[in-house]
């Protein structure tokens, strides 16, 4: 194949559309391996495609304009005239803040437009592809009888840019509109508030349901039109996308792009900042309350004037301060803090739009602060916004309450007359003195205060709830979690069927169990049987009281029995990544119980790696009190909130768990770092190759969660191997060896030798038929958002990659192992995916039985000459059946000798058993990967599938022989647990590392040199069993003197990348060899290397840099 032809295929290759079985695919692979130009072009094209994709999905997602939506709505209504109203959900714009505001559509008579729903894009998890975060959800209120478009036009709805801040959807103010006498009450609260806050509408009872996804709840019919007006405002600004322009944070900044939308409750991700937030909120709430009391006590006559002359309300100051403090306090999670501060800043002036906000600024000025230009501008802007909002709201009210004709004329004085005689358009030239025109709305200030109070109370309650949640579910603190789904009962039928207001987008799956609460009382349980787009239908499993519409429903993890009274409340305690008092309380409870347990069990013998503990504990009332705080004691925050569900209900079947012999805490084992070896004593360094990268993924997870990984979790070679050093790959030999050396970037007077070994590439087409047996851990511990759903996703992705000749078997194990799917051809994708989806989590973890069944199945459908592999997907905890590591390993080894290999895919953290999984993969001649995100799942199962499945060499060992004349002493970085005795190098029975297609391994040595500069350093030997021929081969390469030369991050970025990765790992594991190093020095070097074009667009390098920046100053994970 020549270049021109190859170039025609590159795009297909990039997008995975190249016919893998066809001759073109293999020819292209061969060509690419040999042709540098084409390989480069491929890379360029790949990067370009990635960049364009990012460019396209960056920023706000375009949506149809409001008018056009109205037209379409109208059309839809025409078509569906006889259909009952449905809530609809729309991807829309407004990614920036993660708040979503809904557009309300019309109802026939009085309340034409009503109801805004604020929801959270909780579906977005931290690791979802960025595009996901750009999608917001806009809800359509039931379309009862949508207004004709003409009618809307007649009523003068327009999308106009009246503020210069972007289009605003609203209604033109008519000159002298007056309220209809039927209107319940003059607006007590400034209704523009809701809209201006850009979705921070906490008054709405629906807000309490912050996790409901995009459920819509129609407002009660009694809702005053005032509310409706406020909402309409919201709807308008939301649709036209001007919310962003009203918030202070520039949406264009990089931060919101990769920032997952987090609900307020999501502050629970970061325990400390949540605690902080709660404290701050409490404080300002208290002050507000006092203020409100004081205000109420004053004589009412000239309250508003006085209000104006007050010093800046504490609200603003307090919230600002809080924002600032949060920012400085927590520079680990700067983004989040920034978000909080955004909230704070945008909430206040916008939230109270001209009430609290403008008073704040105006008042601040009068309190003696010198007026800066900025202040003036701010004040002007606020006043103007207020005015415009007022105009709109007036108009809106007229429009909402009915046509002008039907409205009896009443004295104009009956309505707030802010706008009388004022120009409708920009009044931006007004000076700050103008701002002192007294407020004409009598209770404006007080109302604002009350509103603020109420909002703070809500925030407080939410934050507190998040905290409690965080304590009771340790996993809450990890960033990949999705919150519980919370929704409402919509309808109940006599047949025992219940409809929940939730749809497929909410993450609800069939089989999800919902606990139903009325107020705080548990009244029953539903299992979801059907999910439609707008409803989830379920059947009653348990019912203590008849269900009613509007009862709240909360998804439960697994099927558990709820407890009605808190006295026998139990809590499930995950790993608690925190040292806060709450966590400590919880921890001490666990340890206390452990002591009880261990009294019954035999004491652990020496050398056992596990600690006995029960993952589930029973709380006494006092303990529950200690853990959950005085929630039941009428705390201000919890009053009036829709639901504070009682502590998580106890798990069923914990009697089985009672036999647990494995710790809930993660198991890692630290191996001492390799020491320096004097060459004259031992000039051979021998170790088994290791191409795994799990350690890096695990550490990444920890660091992103705000902790340094446990020392045992850091295997330095896996850090180094996690990156691509672009070694040339050969098509002739199985391995190529590449050595570079230079003065060590991080060690003094040392030389760092980098030995890269790259296996040949076997394309997809060259892959042998595979007989894959998935052994999926379906125990209770896997029933967390970062586990089972990820497993299912990963398997789904993998199945999509398999060819027609491959077969898939699925075994799931909980308390018992069960065969879910037997030997299905990979072409039956649907059947396989359905089977994967059917797997439910329950019970304990009987790993040994699962593996036995898996191996039996693998042996049954053995494909001679093909890939026969058991793929274990687990979080590693085995607690019943044979749990002793050795006997499981024996089984794995037996089958390995029969040709069935074992690949381990780790999921989840906390109860994670790193040791077991690594050993299993090691003994099973398979690879060991850790999947913490969808992206990682894609990388392992799609992009590097060949590497994962297609082994090219077994038992690969490396021996480096140093020349004692040249090298005084050496130290191997990493590979501690891969050590092989020197004399065993040519013993082919020794189990060593396996290398997949195209995989590379890198070994780093720190050397102290001596002697002549032109002498070679030594020789590298690689010995392995060629999988194709079954023969043992050995290759060798001299470490030539010329491979040693001075290098800089600019000249050899990849060399420095390897050095940085190793240094990072050494720092993370507190290696004594990194004693002089610091994260700062590392960061500087890495930044220089990463700025080079070769690395600039490598997402893994960007990620490493992020981790290095983050890691500084983090506490070690408990």
């Amino acid at each position, binding site marked *: 194949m020549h270049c021109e032809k190859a170039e025609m295929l590159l795009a297909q290759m990039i997008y995975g559309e190249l016919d893998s079985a066809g001759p073109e695919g293999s020819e292209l692979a061969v060509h690419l391996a040999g042709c540098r130009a084409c390989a480069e072009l491929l890379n360029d094209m790949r990067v370009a495609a990635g960049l364009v994709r990012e460019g396209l999905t960056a920023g706000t997602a375009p949506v149809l304009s409001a008018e056009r939506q109205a037209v379409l709505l109208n059309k839809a209504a025409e078509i569906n005239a006889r259909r009952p109203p449905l809530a609809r959900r729309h991807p829309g714009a407004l990614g920036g803040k993660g708040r979503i505001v809904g557009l309300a559509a019309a109802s026939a008579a009085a309340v034409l437009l009503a109801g805004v729903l604020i929801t959270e894009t909780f579906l977005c998890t931290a690791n979802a592809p960025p595009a996901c975060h750009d999608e917001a959800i806009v809800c359509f209120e039931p379309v009862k009888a949508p207004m004709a478009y003409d009618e809307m036009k007649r009523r003068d709805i327009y999308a106009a840019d009246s503020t210069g801040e972007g289009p605003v959807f609203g209604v033109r103010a008519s000159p002298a509109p007056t309220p209809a006498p039927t209107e319940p009450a003059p607006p007590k609260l400034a209704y523009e508030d809701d809209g201006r806050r850009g979705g921070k509408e906490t008054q709405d009872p629906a807000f309490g349901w912050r996790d409901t996804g995009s459920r819509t709840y129609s407002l009660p019919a009694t809702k005053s039109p005032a509310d409706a007006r406020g909402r309409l405002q919201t709807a308008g600004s939301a649709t036209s996308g001007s919310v962003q322009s009203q918030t202070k944070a520039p949406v264009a900044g990089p931060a919101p792009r990769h920032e997952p939308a987090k609900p307020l409750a999501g502050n629970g991700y970061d325990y400390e900042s949540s605690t902080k937030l709660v404290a701050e909120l409490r404080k300002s709430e208290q002050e507000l309350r006092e203020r409100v009391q004081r205000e109420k006590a004053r004589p009412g006559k000239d309250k508003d004037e006085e209000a104006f002359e007050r010093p800046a309300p504490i609200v603003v100051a307090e919230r600002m301060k809080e924002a600032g403090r949060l920012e400085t306090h927590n520079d680990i999670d700067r983004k989040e803090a920034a978000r909080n501060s955004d909230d704070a800043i945008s909430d206040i002036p916008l939230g109270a739009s001209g009430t609290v906000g403008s008073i704040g600024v105006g008042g601040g000025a009068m309190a003696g602060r010198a007026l800066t230009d900025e202040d003036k501008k701010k004040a002007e802007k606020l006043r103007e916004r207020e005015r415009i909002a007022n105009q709109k709201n007036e108009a809106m009210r007229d429009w909402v309450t009915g046509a002008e004709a039907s409205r009896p004329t009443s004295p104009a004085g009956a309505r707030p007359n802010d706008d009388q005689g004022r120009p409708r358009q920009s009044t931006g030239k007004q000076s700050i003195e103008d701002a002192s025109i007294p407020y004409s709305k009598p209770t404006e200030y007080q109302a604002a205060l009350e509103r603020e109070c109420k909002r703070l109370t809500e925030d407080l309650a939410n934050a507190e709830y998040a905290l409690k949640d965080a304590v009771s579910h340790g996993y809450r603190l990890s960033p990949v979690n999705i919150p519980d789904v919370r929704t409402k009962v919509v309808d109940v039928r006599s047949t025992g*069927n219940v409809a929940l207001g939730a749809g497929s987008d909410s993450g609800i799956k069939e089989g999800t169990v919902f606990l139903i609460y009325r107020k705080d009382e548990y009244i029953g349980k539903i299992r979801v049987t059907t999910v439609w787009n707008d409803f989830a239908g379920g059947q009653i499993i348990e019912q203590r009281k008849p269900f009613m519409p509007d009862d709240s429903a909360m998804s439960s993890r697994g099927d558990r029995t709820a407890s009605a009274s808190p006295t026998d409340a139990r809590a499930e305690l995950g790993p608690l990544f925190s040292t806060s008092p709450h966590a400590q309380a919880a921890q001490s409870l666990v340890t206390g119980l452990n002591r009880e347990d261990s009294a019954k069990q035999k004491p652990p013998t020496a050398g056992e790696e596990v600690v006995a503990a029960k993952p589930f504990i029973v709380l006494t009332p006092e303990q529950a009190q200690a853990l959950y705080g005085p929630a039941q004691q009428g705390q201000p925050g919890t009053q009036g909130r829709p639901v504070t569900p009682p502590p998580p209900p106890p798990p069923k079947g914990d009697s089985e768990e009672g036999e647990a012999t494995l710790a809930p805490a993660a198991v890692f084992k630290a191996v001492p770092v390799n020491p320096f070896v004097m060459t004259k004593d031992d000039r051979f360094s021998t170790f088994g190759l290791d191409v795994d990268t799990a350690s890096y993924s695990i550490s990444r997870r920890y660091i992103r969660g705000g902790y340094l990984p446990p020392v045992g979790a850091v295997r330095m070679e896996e850090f180094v191997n996690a990156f691509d050093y672009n070694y040339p790959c050969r098509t002739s030999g199985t391995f190529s060896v590449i050595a570079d050396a230079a003065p060590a970037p991080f060690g003094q007077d040392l030389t760092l030798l980098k030995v890269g070994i790259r296996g040949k590439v076997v394309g997809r087409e060259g892959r042998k038929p595979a007989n894959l047996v998935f052994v999926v851990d379906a125990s209770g511990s896997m029933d967390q958002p970062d586990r089972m759903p990820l497993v299912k996703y990963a398997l789904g992705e993998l199945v999509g990659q398999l060819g027609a000749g491959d077969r898939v078997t699925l075994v799931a194990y909980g308390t018992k192992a069960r065969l879910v799917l037997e030997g299905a051809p990979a072409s039956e994708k649907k059947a396989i995916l359905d089977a994967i989806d059917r797997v439910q989590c329950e019970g304990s973890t009987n790993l040994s039985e699962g593996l036995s069944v898996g191996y039996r199945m693998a042996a049954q459908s053995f494909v001679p000459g093909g890939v026969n592999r058991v793929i274990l997907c687990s979080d590693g905890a085995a607690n019943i059946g044979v749990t002793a590591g050795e006997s499981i390993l024996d089984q794995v080894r037996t089958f390995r000798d029969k040709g069935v290999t074992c690949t381990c895919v780790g999921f989840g953290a906390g109860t994670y058993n790193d040791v077991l999984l690594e050993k299993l993969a090691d003994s099973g001649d398979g690879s060991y990967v850790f999947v913490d995100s969808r992206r990682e799942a894609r990388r392992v199962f799609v992009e590097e599938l060949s590497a994962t499945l297609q082994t090219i060499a077994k038992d690969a060992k490396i021996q480096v022989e140093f020349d004692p004349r040249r090298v005084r002493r050496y130290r191997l970085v990493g590979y501690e647990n891969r050590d092989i005795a020197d004399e065993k190098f040519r013993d082919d029975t020794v189990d060593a590392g396996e290398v997949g297609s195209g995989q590379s391994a890198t070994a780093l040595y720190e050397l102290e040199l001596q002697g002549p500069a032109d002498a070679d350093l030594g020789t590298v030997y690689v010995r392995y069993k060629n999988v194709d021929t079954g023969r043992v081969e050995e290759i060798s390469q001299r470490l030539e003197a010329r491979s040693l030369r001075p290098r800089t991050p600019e000249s050899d970025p990849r060399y420095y990348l390897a050095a940085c990765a190793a240094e990072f790992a050494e720092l993370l594991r507190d290696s004594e060899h990194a004693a002089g190093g610091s994260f700062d020095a590392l960061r500087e070097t890495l930044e220089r290397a990463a700025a080079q074009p070769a690395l600039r667009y490598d997402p893994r390098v960007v990620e490493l840099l992020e981790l290095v920046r983050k890691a500084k100053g983090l506490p070690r994970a408990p």
Partner: protein
Amino acid sequence: MAGLLKLDDYKTATRAAEPCDLTEVVGRFQTPLLRYVGGILNRDEDAQDVVQEVFLCYCRFSQRGDAEAVRNLSSWLFSVAHNLSQDVLRKRQREKKAQTELAAAPAPAEADEGQAVDTIIRQAASERALAELRKLPEEYRQVLLLKIVQDMTLREIAKVTGLSFGNAAYRLNQGLKELARRLKEAGVL
């Protein structure tokens, strides 16, 4: 799902006219469609017009009961969008209106040293890439956009655009290659 559900009453109530569920269709497809058409036409109002028309077409279709014929909704919608935007382009040409080329994107902002590799750079690069994409010849652009926005396979793209498979593949390749070349010239790659 099967067996357990006795919720047919809901089903009939909510899903009677399933295929004409316009709101849902709008919700699902407005953003990708707008991205695609916007990328083709380089003008927002035109894109809005076209996308609205696409949905109206869909309405008419489903009203006529042809909705069943709309097997692959995505392909169908994009085909319609493609055809309509081609119409617009043709009209523009007739009117001899110069197509509003986007002003050349500003060169990617020079990086602060401290954030050399940070997301900022990447963002600037991706913005630049987007700008370059918009300047590509139209025949490359449509194929690339369909691929990137909706992740269609070449076969689907061929169906939507009415090209042959080979032609679509050729255009995708050339487009991507050209894009890479331009980005390289611009110093982004």
